């Protein structure tokens, strides 16, 4: 037992911080309906500010902590409530995008200002130890006590006080609660400020334990997710206990890991297992239901007139053919944009066409890249067969991710796929069959008959051709029966299954097809880079991709190409723009795009209605009124006068409910 105790002490200490972070997360989620992916980023921002004040400017640590909590926790909480208010009824993917946008901004700023390397920071709490039957540091004791006091305090606040009951009421029925004389916005603001402050406190407490590192602190949110899942996204005490469990299990795992190398990566994956497992086991019926969603109306698939499309196609073709001569050294960037566009097509099949979400697409791409590399170098398959094989090998992965899609919806699906991506990154990437020791694998270019291995220019054309083929397949899918089923599934899964479609099958097919294209994208990207490696295929990348695809419009093909250009081609022309500024830029755009989407404003419709004239046969225009002879609406003999409320505007009817 003596061997284990020190690890348990460490685990409880870390677990108290995880639990605390989880408590703050659940508090804001339950009061606002907005699941904050940037909760860990708030902790990061608070911890860096604390570091800036305490270490760099010699402010006493206690004062530095208070200032950090006030500025980042309270002030950010105040601002976030204003943003969250506008997002509360938006689709889960919109909320993910907005909070990921905030995460990108904070991470970009901190890594720009302080660099990406881990900064070790001394403990500001006394590190002397006392002995129980194992040495315990006073700092550890204090951290655990702070955690318990805050968790219990918040639990009592929610269950015993008037404002706490208001906080619970505000999520169930905000309007009803306001009738009792309490200001719903004020209650929510308070919840966000408390949640933000708790996040900052957990960040400051964690900083001396793990060191200051923008990525690692941001991922505190994942431990918080795991803790929140154990609390079923509902109970504050259980969330705190969940944090303790995750901390202790991970610490015990760390001891085992040091003895058995086969367990590498397992301890740090404990929260992801908790998150993925609890979500899958509990299912959507056991979790708090989010507020009713107002779905973004997808752009209608009304094609432009044929001459315009043909003209644009020919012009685009000419540009693509001469592109290698025009861009010279930048050709590689355009080549990787082709691969990325294939990935974005695969992602938008989920996000745009079917109202699903995948926050693990980078894992699909990584598996595709490795599969391609091994099929072509080890199995010696011809190039195109290896690429096809890469797509097929990725399909089972898609089917695994379809499981949470069947069991869960909305934000919980997003969380489950995120957890799956993290599991892949932590456990699978480092295995010898993937990237041994984080290394890369060869990804050879195609051997063109009579020419030999393709050069840069020839490979660019190959990549364009593959992209074109995928676009054609996606367009066929969109017009096929499955395409119609998927669009219907996005609007009303209930109606679709009631009318006889097995939606489990539909979702399986969707994720299989999406994974297939992502696998192909992995191969194309790897060959473009010259090697298949884990770089740029972390879970954060999956988040970034979803954020980018969200801001480029609703048309699948156009938005995918735009997203790829914005992500790799555009930065190559802005020489001074480093990755951090790029992340900040995407973050700002993502937040703006989410707010615009959530407000119901559709720029494409607006442009068509207001600027583009009325020449196109409108599906947006007013519904033609039926003539009196048709007898439906205008039948003259009415017993009662029609109630004015029934004469509702089409916009009102759009919300789909009539209650």
């Amino acid at each position, binding site marked *: 037992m003596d061997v284990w105790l020190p690890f348990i002490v460490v685990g409880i200490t870390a677990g108290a911080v995880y639990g605390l972070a989880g408590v703050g997360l659940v508090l804001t989620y339950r009061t606002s309906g907005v699941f904050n992916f940037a909760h860990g980023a708030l902790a990061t921002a608070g911890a860096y500010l604390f570091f800036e004040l305490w270490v760099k400017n010699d402010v006493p640590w206690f004062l530095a902590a208070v200032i950090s909590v006030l500025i980042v926790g309270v002030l950010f909480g105040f601002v976030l409530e204003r943003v969250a208010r506008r997002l509360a009824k938006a689709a889960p993917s919109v909320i993910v995008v907005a909070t990921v946008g905030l995460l990108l901004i904070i991470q970009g700023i901190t890594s720009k200002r302080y660099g990406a390397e881990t900064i070790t920071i001394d403990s500001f709490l006394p590190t002397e130890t006392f002995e129980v039957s194992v040495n315990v540091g006073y700092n550890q004791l204090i951290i655990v006590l702070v955690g318990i006091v805050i968790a219990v305090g918040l639990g009592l606040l929610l269950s015993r006080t008037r404002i706490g009951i208001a906080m619970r009421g505000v999520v169930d029925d905000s309007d009803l609660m306001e009738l009792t004389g309490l200001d719903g916005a004020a209650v929510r603001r308070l919840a966000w400020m408390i949640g933000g402050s708790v996040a900052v406190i957990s960040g400051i407490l964690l900083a001396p334990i793990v060191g200051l590192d923008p990525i690692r602190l941001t991922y505190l949110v994942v431990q918080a997710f795991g803790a929140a899942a154990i609390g079923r996204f509902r109970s504050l005490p259980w969330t705190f206990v969940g944090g303790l469990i995750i901390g202790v299990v991970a610490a015990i795992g760390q001891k085992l890991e040091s003895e058995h190398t086969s367990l590498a990566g397992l301890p740090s994956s404990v929260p992801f297992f908790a998150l993925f497992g609890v979500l899958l086991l509990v299912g959507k019926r056991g979790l708090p*239901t989010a507020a009713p969603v107002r*779905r973004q*109306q*997808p752009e*209608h698939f009304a094609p432009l007139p044929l001459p315009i499309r043909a003209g644009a196609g020919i012009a685009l073709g000419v540009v693509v053919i001469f592109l290698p001569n025009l861009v010279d050294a930048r050709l590689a960037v355009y080549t990787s944009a082709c691969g990325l566009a294939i990935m974005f097509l695969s992602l938008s099949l989920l996000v745009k066409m079917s109202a699903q979400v995948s926050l693990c697409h980078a894992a699909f791409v990584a598996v595709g890249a490795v599969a391609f590399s091994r099929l072509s170098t080890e199995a010696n398959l011809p190039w195109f067969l290896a690429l096809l094989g890469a797509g097929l090998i990725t399909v089972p992965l898609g089917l695994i991710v379809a499981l949470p899609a069947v069991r869960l919806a909305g934000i919980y699906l997003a969380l489950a796929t995120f957890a799956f991506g993290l599991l892949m990154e932590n456990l699978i990437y480092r295995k010898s069959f993937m990237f041994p020791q984080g290394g890369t694998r060869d990804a050879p270019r195609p051997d063109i008959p009579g020419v030999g291995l393709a050069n840069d220019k020839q490979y660019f054309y190959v990549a364009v051709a593959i992209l074109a083929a995928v676009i054609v397949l996606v367009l066929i899918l969109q017009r*096929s*029966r*499955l395409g*119609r*089923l998927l*669009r*219907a599934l*996005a*609007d*009303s899964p*209930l*109606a*679709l*299954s*009631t*009318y*006889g*479609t*097995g*939606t*489990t*099958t*539909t979702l*399986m*097919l969707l994720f299989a097809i999406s994974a297939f294209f992502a696998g192909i994208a992995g191969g194309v990207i790897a060959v473009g880079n010259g090697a298949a490696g884990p770089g740029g295929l972390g879970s954060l990348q999956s988040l970034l991709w979803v954020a980018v695809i969200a801001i480029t419009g609703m048309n699948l093909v156009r938005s995918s190409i735009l997203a790829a250009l914005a992500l790799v081609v555009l930065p190559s022309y802005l020489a001074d723009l480093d990755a951090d500024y790029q992340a900040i830029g995407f973050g700002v755009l993502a937040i703006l795009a989410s707010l615009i989407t959530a407000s119901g404003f559709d720029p494409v419709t607006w442009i068509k209605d207001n600027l583009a004239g009325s020449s196109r*046969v409108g*599906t*947006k225009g007013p*519904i*033609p009124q*039926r003539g009196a002879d*048709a*007898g*439906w*609406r205008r*039948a003259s*003999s*009415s*017993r*009662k006068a*029609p*109630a004015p409320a*029934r004469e*509702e505007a*089409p916009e009102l*009817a*759009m919300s*789909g*409910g*009539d*209650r």
Partner: protein
Amino acid sequence: MTARTTARAESAGLHIENLVVRFGGVTAVNHLTMHAPIGSVTGLIGPNGAGKTTTFNACSGANSPSEGKITFDGHDLSGAPASARAKFGIGRTFQRIELYDSLTVAENVALGREARLAGVSPITQLIPRRGERAAIAKATEEAMAQCGITEVAKARAGRLSTGQRRLVELARALAGDFRLLLLDEPSSGLDATESDAFTTLLKSVVAELGIGILIVEHDMTVISGLCDYAYVLDFGQLLFEGLPNDVLTSDLVRKAYLGTEDLGIHAPDDEIVEANA
């Protein structure tokens, strides 16, 4: 058991035997037995919270019964998933309209048929069989003409008024070629004129197609004008059953509606909504 052994006409249609549905401690439907035959309109009425929608959801597979048995044309539906019931020939509309809002009216109606043809097999979901495309187009045309929505065929369903949306939902159900339609408060959200027109339409549909309809309604005028037979629910229990005129004159039913004289009261339904939400 009796349904199997007696004449074929008896076993046709939807049979609910001793249905019990509980949510936690609440018994929403308590030992309900009823029959909705093919070729006629059966009404299911009752005040708010009587268990009408819960009964409906048990029939369409949106919730699962705690006790009892539901059969359709001799097939046991009690444990079948929602999609299987559609395969046997039961279609339904929803009290809270469930249209594919971003699709056009024509696409919505076509999916009434196509969703059923797509079924649960990955192959039929990917590749239509020979002749299905034509059958879908024909059924869509006919159903839209029948409901008088051909003019708005290209409009997006999400942009229509509630009255038109009800018609689109009905057209989608008709296109599905179902033998029995479950209509959940089709007149809610409609004004009196629209409601009358809807009743007329339903009558012509039953006469032309020979299908059966089980209709949940609030509005007594709809019931008396449309139904061949009616069941009255109150607090999850069968209160009364009989011809519409007998229902209207029943003292028991009057009492259940809080003693009011005007049985045509038209209030929004606040029934327990579970899977529907």
